[in-house]
């Protein structure tokens, strides 16, 4: 009799990521201030739709481009975003943050929509450039009285999970209908970005 095997297929991984993202906090025995720091950090990137759109779009685009972009882009974004966060924490001013965030959703969404395939360096530079705006916005909005370490860990993990969500959704790219669905998703991201740009200008 054939034994059932645990298969680490992309579909199973996407399901696992989805289930992990659905998990609620346990609140078992939090140290004073610590769990709050982690949860506040974790919630911060997912609290704004403009950030979520861009981060998921990075995962979608990486999945469209395939290896090595599928892992290089989600590595580049959190690293450069943390650098932007550091600049924000230090009080280094960057002009036009809200425009940059909205433009990131528009351009990354458009890249997914048109399946734009630039050289890897250009794709990483584009993602990294916009990550600075997202990180800076988060860095300047940090609430006081948090555990710096746990806040930072939660913040970076949430960003990575959003990329993973995008990659998980992007695994449908292997099918013809999936490629069309991804392009529609890119169009939706770009439309959302246009809305946020309009809000920033108005």
């Amino acid at each position, binding site marked *: 009799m054939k034994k059932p095997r645990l298969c*680490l297929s992309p579909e199973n991984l996407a399901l696992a990521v989805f289930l992990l993202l659905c998990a609620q906090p346990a609140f078992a025995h939090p*140290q004073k201030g*610590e769990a709050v720091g982690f949860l506040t950090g974790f919630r911060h990137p997912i609290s704004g739709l403009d950030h979520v759109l861009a981060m998921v779009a990075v995962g979608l685009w990486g999945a469209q481009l395939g290896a090595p972009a599928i*892992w290089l882009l*989600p*590595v580049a974004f*959190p*690293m450069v*975003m*943390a*650098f932007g*966060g*550091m*600049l*924000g*924490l*230090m*009080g280094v001013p960057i002009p036009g943050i809200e425009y940059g965030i909205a433009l990131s959703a528009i351009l990354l969404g458009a890249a997914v929509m048109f399946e734009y395939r630039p050289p890897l360096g250009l794709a990483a530079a584009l993602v990294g450039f916009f990550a600075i705006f997202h990180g800076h916005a988060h*860095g300047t909005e*940090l609430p006081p009285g948090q555990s*710096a*370490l*746990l*806040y*930072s*860990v939660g*913040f*970076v*993990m949430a960003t*990575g999970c959003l990329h993973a969500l995008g990659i998980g959704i992007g695994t449908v790219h292997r099918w013809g209908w999936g490629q069309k669905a991804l392009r529609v998703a890119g169009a939706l991201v770009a439309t959302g970005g246009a809305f946020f740009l309009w809000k920033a200008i108005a």
Partner: protein
Amino acid sequence: MNQPSKSRLPLCAFVGFTLLMWALPAEAHLNSTGMGPFYDGLMHFLLSPEDIIPVFGLALLAGLRGAHYGRRALFVLPIAWLLGALAGLTSFASAPHPFIAAAWFLLLGGLVAADARLSLRTTTALAGLLGLYHGYLNGTGMGPSLSTLVVLLGLVFAIFVIVALVAASVVRLRASWTRIAVRVTGSWIAASGLLMLGWAVRTR
């Protein structure tokens, strides 16, 4: 001729009831008694993210390079940690410097993300420095006593187990995407270090 079989239910119920009455209190939450110095040390490490994340990073780094590196880190790190803690026992309590804490995150996370091909000697030196520094910080303020030594044993035991589990798990990874996942984890550690650095500058 078949005799009507007696139901065993009353007997089982009686035995079950008696066993339940014999049950001792679990004392799962030892608020009054504590867990003992060994478990205090063990739990102190497991509940201190500023300690456990660099150890995790070093274990990932050693695991990426292979079993030999993993074995070296497995023994050097806990021993250095113990020596550092013993050296710190006579000092006053001191907190980790935020810049150095952030630098450890950046260094170890960056090396894992880059899949840096460090020599065994460099990895050993990193493990030794990390153990001495964090061990010293753990040891400060404890005061020399017999129970302190047991606390340190628990702490070192926890480090040994974490390094063994993490490094061994990484060593046996073969699929390329799993090694990439390890490097992504490293990039997250480094990114956290960058944010901690900004935070440290802001709160100075």
